[in-house]
């Protein structure tokens, strides 16, 4: 079973890297970009075969390590 975790900065937390990307896009002539937020994607191969159990486990992984919930939020996709 595969899981994909998306980690993003929480709304309201300034994202200096996203801002830099937005500026760079502007310099390249993409004038319509109003905001850029940069995050990360983490893919996991799991031994688990039960979807609900896998999601519970990945959620625990996010809380303990994969995301810093002081500044980041996450979503989990199980496939």
């Amino acid at each position, binding site marked *: 079973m595969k899981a994909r975790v998306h980690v993003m900065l929480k709304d309201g937390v300034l994202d200096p890297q996203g801002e830099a990307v937005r500026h760079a896009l502007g310099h390249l002539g993409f004038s319509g970009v109003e905001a850029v937020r940069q995050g990360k994607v983490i893919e996991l191969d799991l031994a688990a075969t039960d979807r609900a159990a896998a999601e519970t486990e990945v959620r625990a992984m996010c809380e303990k390590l994969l995301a810093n919930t*002081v500044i980041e939020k996450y979503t989990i996709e199980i496939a």
Partner: protein
Amino acid sequence: MKAAVITFPGSNCDRDLAVAFEAAGAEVVRVWHKETALPEGLDVIGVPGGFSYGDYLRCGAIASRSPIGQAVVDFAGRGGYVIGICNGFQVLTEMGLLPGALMRNAGLKFVCKPQALRVASTDCAFTAGYAAGAEVVYPIAHHDGNFTIDAEGLAALEAEDRVAFRYIGNPNGSMNDIAGVLSANRRVLGLMPHPERAADPAQGGTDGAALFRALAGVMAQV
């Protein structure tokens, strides 16, 4: 004073920190990250600067969950003194021993220079040797020192006098110019600037030596 200095793969200020502790009269024990227990009779733990675990995932994230990490958390939980410098500060926030997080510098550049600071609180064992409001210069060298916290947490830090150091001329976008913060019990300090790199005349400045001397003085009374 008996001090432990933790070394993670990628730590690079561990020796400097040990030398600064020793110059203040401390007995220093170096502790490797794979150990699970700390030495007996410890007064203070130093978590050094560097790039622990290559800054993978987030700065300090992997180090904070390393085998020795739980022992550090337990030591702080028993009221032990802990100082985290630069990457060590990032590790302590990731451990949950200090509030907030250190994000990418607002200017996106690695900043490496002597930095003027204001000693914002002298109400802790680390800064008791400075005059209130004193200006000191410690080197800074970081890419992720932009201190960020929610509005409620920021208000609490200010109301409880838990900002130990502020930048004079903010180099990285930190909220309220915060360079160093204290835990609620005032025994855990995290700061981005490097007092251990300003603790000997050969380093070009000695403003940081008073921090280690003050700590040794408090420990001598315990």
